[in-house]
């Protein structure tokens, strides 16, 4: 599994695909009537994941679930204190969130601060009936009382490590495959890792 001393492959291309399919099935089973569900991807990598989940739902259930994009830069609690600056992207919710079950989608759940900001941002658009959380990887080390409803993979990590998710839509890496790596280096500042899709 190991491709470099400080870098371990946690999920390969096939495993990411399977995890996304399983997440989509779980959402279909547990999120309530399909016509009340909306998927909202947290920029940057939550957005392609939300689109993939919607594609699986379409394939399996023959139904179009709306997909929105949420940018949380203006809601962060460290916008002016972090080392590198967070780029501000666009939020686009092409549906009314009122009375919807909104499933927030992100790649990695870590401290929970991103999700806290996303909850605040979402509430400014109206009053969803319910908000749930789907993540590809839960790496632990929460700093806020936030838990996911749907998890692709739980990865045990240490504080000094970080998780690197590569998705073909954003990270055109060698071979162009999806992958999740565990790195033995601290979390990079968000500003560096974020790039518009």
């Amino acid at each position, binding site marked *: 599994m190991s491709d470099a001393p400080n870098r371990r492959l946690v999920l390969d291309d096939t495993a990411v695909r399977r995890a996304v399919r399983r997440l989509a099935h779980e959402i279909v089973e547990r999120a309530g009537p399909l016509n009340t569900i909306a998927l909202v991807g947290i920029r940057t990598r939550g957005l392609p994941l939300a689109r993939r989940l919607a594609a699986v739902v379409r394939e399996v259930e023959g139904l179009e679930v709306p997909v929105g994009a949420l*940018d949380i*830069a*203006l*809601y962060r609690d460290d*916008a*002016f204190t972090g080392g*590198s*600056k*967070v*780029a*501000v*992207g*666009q*939020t*686009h919710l092409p549906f009314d969130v009122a009375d919807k079950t909104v499933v927030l989608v992100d790649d990695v759940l870590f401290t929970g601060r991103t999700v806290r900001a996303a909850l*605040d*941002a979402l509430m*400014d*658009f*109206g009053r969803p009936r319910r908000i749930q959380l789907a993540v590809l990887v839960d790496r632990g080390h929460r700093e806020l009382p936030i838990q996911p409803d749907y998890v692709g993979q739980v990865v045990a990590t240490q504080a000094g490590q970080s998780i690197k998710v590569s998705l073909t839509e954003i990270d055109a890496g060698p071979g162009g495959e999806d992958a999740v790596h565990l790195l033995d280096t601290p979390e990079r500042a968000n*500003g560096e890792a*974020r*790039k*518009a899709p």
Partner: protein
Amino acid sequence: MTQTRRHLLELAPLEAREITELLDLAESFQDISHRRIKKVPALRGMTVVLLFLEASTRTRTSFELAAKRLSADTLSIAGGTSSVVKGETLLDTTRNLAAMSPDIIVLRHKHSGSPHLLARHIDASIVNAGDGGHEHPTQGLLDALTIRQHKKRIAGLKVAIIGDIAHSRVARSNIAALGKLGADVWVCGPPTMVPPGIEALGCRATSDRDTAVRDADVVMMLRIQKERMTEELFPSDREYSQRFGLDRDVLARARPDALVMHPGPINRGVELAPDVADGPQSIILDQVANGIAVRMAVLYHCAGGGGGDA
């Protein structure tokens, strides 16, 4: 401490990349004004002082809304109500304000270079909201953004700026912004209103309106600012209008899809015919709407926030 503050004093020294980043950031802020809750918490807990020592409604309200939509606390001080009328110097007024620890001071002042003076002496981010005949950087940015949104580009466009170039800080900021972004900028006005050597700022100059308007992609009309004129620079409004105003016949010489802009307030019938001001090619109200997004971007940038990734 003072050195690490970010200011926006003028566009002339900025690089094209920095201008583009501010425009991208402004685009990210645009949709906030169309939401049900027109507010984001980005500048929560910060104080923005609007120090407007020269008459202004549009720019001051635009900055005030921008600051409020970012959740900053605002304090508005206008010329007539401040102790400046009691003889206090600008620096003394501002030092007193600075003692209240504002994060950003937005200054409108009749003297060129006033914002630079504050930036040297006051520990706050300074935003120039118009200093004499020097620059009006947020106007230059909002004009550039409005053009970019309508034309999908700025490089290669012919932009004619017509009016009192000599007294116009709007012209200077536009020459700087549009020139750096690759536009072919022409300025035009009566010889008394086009300063010699203006070409050094990166534009071409003419006193012949038709030369400026011919095949232009954008025609930007400037307001005749009688309050800034210390002498008669043209014989009459009527003659000015005939030689330098924009009506339908003159506009017909520009490209068919040319945009008409004006920083406001308009002297209807002097520099701009009413049917052109309200016509299909006019994007004057888009300029106003974009002003809020641009000022949000500038305040957010000066507060220390990151760029746009639109």
